[in-house]
């Protein structure tokens, strides 16, 4: 398949993740929307790596995956700590840190 088809799929996945992040209020689903956006960006890197035959894009995806793993560890432990205090997963009800 030509490069553009892959780019469109990557863009769609990023946009679906962005929509989920704007629409949903469950903190777990927000976390998964961020993962979707990261994957959309990663797929752009892989597509352009194939187009220009430069493996630097693969190295970037390696870094993105490491970043996502770090984010998952810290983000989910924050989630557990908040849930232990408040027993809520709806971000509209977790406004103590706001302003």
């Amino acid at each position, binding site marked *: 398949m030509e490069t553009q088809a892959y780019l469109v799929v990557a863009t769609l996945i990023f946009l679906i993740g962005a*929509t989920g992040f704007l629409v949903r209020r469950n903190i*777990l689903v927000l976390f*998964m929307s961020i993962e979707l956006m990261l994957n959309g960006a990663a797929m752009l890197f892989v597509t352009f790596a194939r187009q220009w035959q430069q493996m630097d894009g693969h190295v970037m995806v390696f870094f993105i995956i490491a970043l996502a793993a770090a984010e998952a560890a810290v983000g989910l432990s924050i989630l557990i700590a908040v849930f232990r205090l408040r027993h809520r997963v709806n971000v509209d009800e977790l406004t103590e840190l706001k302003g």
Partner: protein
Amino acid sequence: MEKTLFLILSTVAVVGALVTITRKNPLGSAIALIVTFVALSGLYFTLDAAFVGALQVLVYAGAIMVLVVFVIMLLNLPEGELEEERIPPRRWALAFFSVVPLGFLCIAQILSATPPAKTPVAPSFGSVAGVGRLLFGDYLLQFEVVSLLLLVAIVGAIVMAKKKL
């Protein structure tokens, strides 16, 4: 053959992403997200990125999603908590009007470009040896910085999970 494979994998990936953001139960979202990740890994293999494709299944669909599913189980959400989330149409409209113009701009830009035709790749393209040579050569400093990031994440996770902060 390649075209059919691409169509199947990309459809599965996009539908899985849509299911992820629309399920009320976060466990359903997590399962759909795993399906999306596996489909994306297949797309990476069609782009001759064997190492990254394997990493996607191992780390993303394996480690990260196991962590998410484990946390969902640990929270043991009461039924009422899930019912409370009803998305008002106003919020859908706001998201629609912010995401659709962005998507229109991106996709119009992509379709207007005319990249040169793909050429066949060398057998070492995307292999573990090829990526590894780059990772421990040109990107050695960045690789070490990532190890620092993972260390910070480990310490952060332990501090956050402690009973008394």
